[in-house]
């Protein structure tokens, strides 16, 4: 009755590797939901964070929104959206995006605010326009922190996307919800393990993205 036994039993069962309820299919669904939610959250959080950080205004309002966003229970929001909107992707995306926007927004804002003001002053003094200052001077230096905000948002989305199964959608949450319902703990533990592994892989992806996108001058200096 130990966990490793469940894990072993789940992954060595050949039938878990095929079909619409197989591991590849559920994993693909889970990744799709997560990417979509992360993308939507980034589309909202990044521009707002970059602009407020660049101009240094709206910090208090952001903190307020972020706190409110964090206080909303994801599961409660899911149920509410399901009641209001019915079956579909939208009720799932709303809580995931609400969950992911605050870390992206707040860290992006903080990252932009923490950029050393003297290169920014030098850039303006040399005749760079505001968009150049933002994208060529501030963003490259703020990038490591911004990536860390995206990373924690991604991890939270991946673990929370399991709730999609409660409203009859797929993803790795399927194993957990179905397993609990069927009292099939092999399935529950297997699903949870897959979520954990996916989260670890995501950490690796962000690490690699940091190596690739962040200048060596910033990685060392920052």
């Amino acid at each position, binding site marked *: 009755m130990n966990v490793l036994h469940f894990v072993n039993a789940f992954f060595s069962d050949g039938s878990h590797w095929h079909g619409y309820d197989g591991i590849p299919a559920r994993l693909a669904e889970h990744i799709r939901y997560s990417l979509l939610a992360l993308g939507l959250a980034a589309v909202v959080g990044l521009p707002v964070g970059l602009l407020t950080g660049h101009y240094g205004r709206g910090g208090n309002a952001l903190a307020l929104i972020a706190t409110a966003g964090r206080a909303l229970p994801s599961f409660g929001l899911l149920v509410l959206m399901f009641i209001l909107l019915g079956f579909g992707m939208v009720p799932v995306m709303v809580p995931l995006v609400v969950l992911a926007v605050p870390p992206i927004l707040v860290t992006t804002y903080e990252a932009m605010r923490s950029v*050393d003001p*003297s*290169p*920014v*002053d*030098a*850039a*303006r*003094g*040399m*005749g*760079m*326009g505001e968009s*150049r200052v933002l994208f060529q*001077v501030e963003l*490259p*230096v703020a990038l490591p922190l911004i990536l860390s905000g995206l990373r924690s948002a991604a991890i939270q989305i991946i673990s929370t996307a399991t709730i999609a199964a409660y409203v009859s959608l797929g993803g790795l949450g399927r194993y957990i919800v179905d397993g609990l319902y069927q009292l099939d703990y092999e399935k529950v533990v297997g699903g949870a393990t897959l979520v954990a592994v996916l989260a670890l892989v995501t950490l690796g992806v962000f690490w690699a993205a940091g190596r690739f996108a*962040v*200048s*060596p*001058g*910033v990685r*060392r*200096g*920052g």
Partner: protein
Amino acid sequence: MIRIDTVTKRYPDGTVAVDRLSLEIPDRSITVLVGPSGCGKTTTLRMINRMVEPSEGSILLDGVDIREQPVNSLRRSMGYVIQNAGLFQHRTIVDNIATVPRLLGWGRQKSRARAVELMERVGLDSALAKRYPYQLSGGQQQRVGVARALAADPPVLLMDEPFSAVDPVVRKGLQDELLRLQEELGKTIVFVTHDIDEAIKLGTTVAVLRAGGRLAQYAPPAELLTAPADAFVEDFLGTDRGIRRLSFFGTAGLELKTSPIVAVDATAEEAAARPGGDVHYLLVTDRDGRPLGWSEPAALTAGAVDAGRLLPHGRPFEYGVESLRAALDCAVLSPTGWAVAVDGTGRAVGVVSQQTIGEAIRTAHAEGRRTEAGADARTGDDAGSAAGTDAKVAG
């Protein structure tokens, strides 16, 4: 020429940073804005490239209001150097320097080639081109800052306390480098500092500002030291302005004594033959004529010179090159009260007493006063310099 015409900067909270300031900044010279903190010197500088907009008045560049052209093209035509250099830490040194050429649309190759050329010009090893700013010392970073400002060969260079964050030794190196560069390039430089010594060393003209952004005095450094406009300027110059002013007087006219110089391999007779007079010590040199130290004549009569028992001669001054300030400093520090003058190769060319230096200072001051007395009093000049020569001979 940059003409600052009755410019006032008033902030919304009512603070006046600059108060009806008028200045004419001539081409190809270093104009230093100096004053205590809160005197509006940085604000004035930043109004020239429109980082700050004046509340009243106007600034003309070669007769044209700086607001006539787009702000970014104005800024690209003026080099900008700030404290701590403000380098882009995510870019290599060569890309940092190439910033403005790239903004002006030069090609990547051309910009980089220009950047490497400038690295050599400001005294940076081109092996540093691919490094990042964190890999450089503070002094090197500031050189990169200067190179970056010069990259597109702008006629105007604005420098905002560029050397105040580095240690004194590095700062002196950077100041000397700037003077050398200026001799080569002949830019119109506006330089802000709170350090009056830096202002006097670098400035062709110095504008002293007082708190509240009002101009206290605008004059060449020597004039500032000779005739401070009021108590504020005098106080700001510090207690040793008389000594500092000596930096502007040369040592070429100083009468040297050569008789007390004796070579280390001189015989006792030769040493004894040196006339004593008012010099109670002999300066012993090596066979090439480089000073070794001072000796009492009595110690020499016993025979060969004992190089191990000499009094230290202290730092010598380079005759005709260094100022009276350096000569006086040498004499004050010398254990015998006599300064040692050397030529460019380090050979002793003579010795000079504190008294002689003191007389040269009085002569120089007298000449300085006459020059100030008026340009039309030219006829008196010949007689004056003749009197000056007499005074030197008497010493």
